[in-house]
């Protein structure tokens, strides 16, 4: 039986990831656009409501900073931000921060409408990516924070790799004005079961050859080395990880930003063939095709597979849920690039009534004490001091991030370049795992990529 309880408890972290990864471009686009479709019919009602509200909120808001976010109160970000609110209120006597917790869905669906009204909050957390923050910036709904970035020195805290998702030029990320500031980052790594590694005398892989040798050892012992899930993002991250191991930063920029991907190039062909090969060799279970990300987590947590390649969003979950074995992580061996990016953004709506306070609040969230909370709760802060991080695992998580960020090693996520590419990637990787011809799978990716870019 699949682990039912695990499913429920883990859903929070996985949802958090889904919105960070896949939703960054795809469903979010759909949602906000669908909203626009409905908007026409709702317009009259909205206008009426705004008219009623605008008279009341103007003067009283001078002492109130209205803030919206969608993190759970007990999550790393939730805890860190309640500390930030305390710090901020202490530093700004007479100012109250009115925190309104929204759901991710709620914000995705209503953001363009609400931000265009006088009900806009003063500051809010919003999803990074072209189809979300990019779209709002293009519509003129977000404040360009470039002057504040220089004034507060935020650019010194955020590496250029992380800043990619903060800067938008005509709605496209990568360059231009700063429209959002992230507090955290995320990246993919290999989680491994230390007990199983010891039992089978497998050393922690230092090179790609070590990695495959380790997997061979497990296969010989009748164990599937890699936990996988074909029906959701994990399988496509394996594919992307493999492609990245043969790629360079220019390849990533071409793929992610310039719209110049060639799915029949050396990197993608290698990735597709290797993935098929890994299934044949038993590194990845063939019957993982229909599994979801939570199932992959269960496979790793139950000790069935000694390794799992996925993002830092699993870190907190594993720390609280894995009790019966020791686990640790290493970066994908032999590759300078891994899937990852900056986290979701603080944005200031153009209609914010307290912009200066909003800027000050962003600055507060980037201070050491707030960032340290993020670190000690198992997430990756963008500006923490590793010396202040007490938990050794968290320390390693941050050190690895620092290494990657310094070398521009975060290669974003494979589904980012085109809205809805997530589904195409899922279908293609399922075909590959089922042993279909890699040329046709890559061909379908090329078609969908070009179709999406031409829209």
């Amino acid at each position, binding site marked *: 039986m699949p682990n039912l309880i695990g499913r429920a408890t883990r859903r929070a972290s996985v949802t958090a990831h889904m919105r960070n990864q896949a939703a960054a471009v795809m469903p979010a686009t759909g949602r906000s656009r*669908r909203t626009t479709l409905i908007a026409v019919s709702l317009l009259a009602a909205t206008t009426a409501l705004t008219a009623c509200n605008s008279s009341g909120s103007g003067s009283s808001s001078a002492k109130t900073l209205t803030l919206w976010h969608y993190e759970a109160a007990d999550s790393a970000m939730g805890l860190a931000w309640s500390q930030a609110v305390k710090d901020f209120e202490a530093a700004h006597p007479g100012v109250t921060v009115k925190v309104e917790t929204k759901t991710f869905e709620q914000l995705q669906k209503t953001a363009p409408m609400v931000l265009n009204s006088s009900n806009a909050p003063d500051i809010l957390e919003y999803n990074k990516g072209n189809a979300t923050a990019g779209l709002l910036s293009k519509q003129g709904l977000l404040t360009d924070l470039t002057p504040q970035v220089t004034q507060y020195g935020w650019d010194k805290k955020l590496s250029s790799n992380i800043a990619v998702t903060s800067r938008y030029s005509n709605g496209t990320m990568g360059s231009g004005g700063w429209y959002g500031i992230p507090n955290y980052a995320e990246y993919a790594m290999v989680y491994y079961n230390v007990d199983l590694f010891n039992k089978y005398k497998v050393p922690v892989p230092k090179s790609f050859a070590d990695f495959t040798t380790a997997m061979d050892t497990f296969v010989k012992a009748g164990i599937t080395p890699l936990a996988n899930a*074909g029906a959701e993002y994990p399988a496509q991250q394996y594919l992307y990880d493999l492609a990245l191991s043969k790629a360079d930063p220019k390849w990533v920029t071409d793929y992610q930003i310039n719209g110049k991907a060639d799915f029949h190039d050396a990197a993608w062909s290698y990735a597709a063939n290797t993935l098929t090969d890994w299934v044949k060799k038993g590194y990845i279970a063939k019957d993982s095709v*229909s599994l979801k990300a939570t199932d992959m987590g269960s496979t790793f947590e139950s000790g069935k597979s000694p390794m799992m390649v996925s993002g830092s969003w699993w870190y907190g979950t594993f720390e609280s849920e894995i009790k019966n074995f020791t686990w640790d992580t290493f970066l994908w061996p032999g590759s300078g690039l891994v899937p990852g990016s900056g986290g979701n953004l603080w944005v200031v709506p153009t209609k914010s009534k307290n912009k200066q306070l909003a800027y000050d609040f962003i600055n507060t969230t980037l201070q050491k004490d707030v960032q340290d909370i993020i670190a000690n709760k198992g997430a990756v802060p963008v500006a923490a001091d590793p010396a202040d991080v007490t938990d050794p695992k968290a320390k390693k998580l941050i050190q690895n991030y620092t290494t990657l960020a310094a070398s521009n090693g975060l290669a974003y996520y494979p589904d980012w370049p085109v*809205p*809805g590419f997530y589904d195409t990637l899922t279908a293609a990787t399922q075909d590959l795992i089922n042993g279909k011809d890699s040329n046709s799978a890559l061909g379908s990716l090329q078609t969908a990529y070009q179709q999406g870019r031409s*829209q």
Partner: protein
Amino acid sequence: MTVAGTAGPAQVASPDIARRESRRRRGKRVDRGYPLFLLPGAALFLVVIAVPFGMNVWISFNRWQGIGPMTWVGLGNYRRLLADSVFWSSFWHNVLLIVAMAVVPTMIGLVVAAALFDYLGKKFGPRTASVLRACLYLPQVMPLAVMGVVWGWILAPGNGVLNSALRDVGLGSLTHDWLGDPKSALYAIMAVMVWIQIGFPLVVFMAGLQRIDPVLYEAAELDGASWARRFRHVTVPQIRPEFYVVLLMCTIAALKAFAPIYVLTHGGPGYSTDIPSYFSYQNFFEKTQVGYGAATATVLALITLIITAVFISLQFRRRDEED
């Protein structure tokens, strides 16, 4: 029309004249008050169906991301649709889904209804039959999303309920990744849909059976007809109207099926369980190729309309023949 037909001969010689006469008389009255009663329905139809459908057709002639400017592409989206192999294979999957959601449940429902009504009902009392009917109808009442999740666990690879059960009874060689293998995924979904759908034909048929004059059965029995022959020559012809209703409603349900695919497979593995409604949804909301998604939706709506028209005309023709 049957009312006019039977009332006719008493007043005038030709039933045709009587029918026309009664229509004319009714027509006069209609002119006065009745159109008012049509207004709410017509307004709703206009707002909920006609205008959105018209907009959808309009959008399907454009390239549009859901916001921003539209680019007129004429029949471009439809040309692309004609050449899209994923779309056509999704249509084929929908045909199989019609088999699973309309044809098979209708047949099973008919046999089960007859057995419950004719045999179990008589032998164990109507209460037993009602309880069994309610049990079989249960899947129709439960939310599809919940059932999808539960069936996902049942059909899960490895330690899924079905595979575990197979192993327990010594059929370990039959274990399979039911939803992960493109060869079995659609059939697995079809099986789930049969289970879900049976309740609807069953309830309709049982209601229909109660309408049949018991005299017919008695006469057939006296003539020495077996249960099977009574079933074939009395039951089936008598509940023909119910057949049309059930088949039509189930076929339409199959054409607009979305939830089972969304919950169980997301159209995968690969595109092996993709269906037009899901295909349209993906283009509309996930790929934000709204024009293309609208073209798919328009084609799907037209096909549903055609099938409905065929069913209804068949039904009327049959009824006219019987009259």
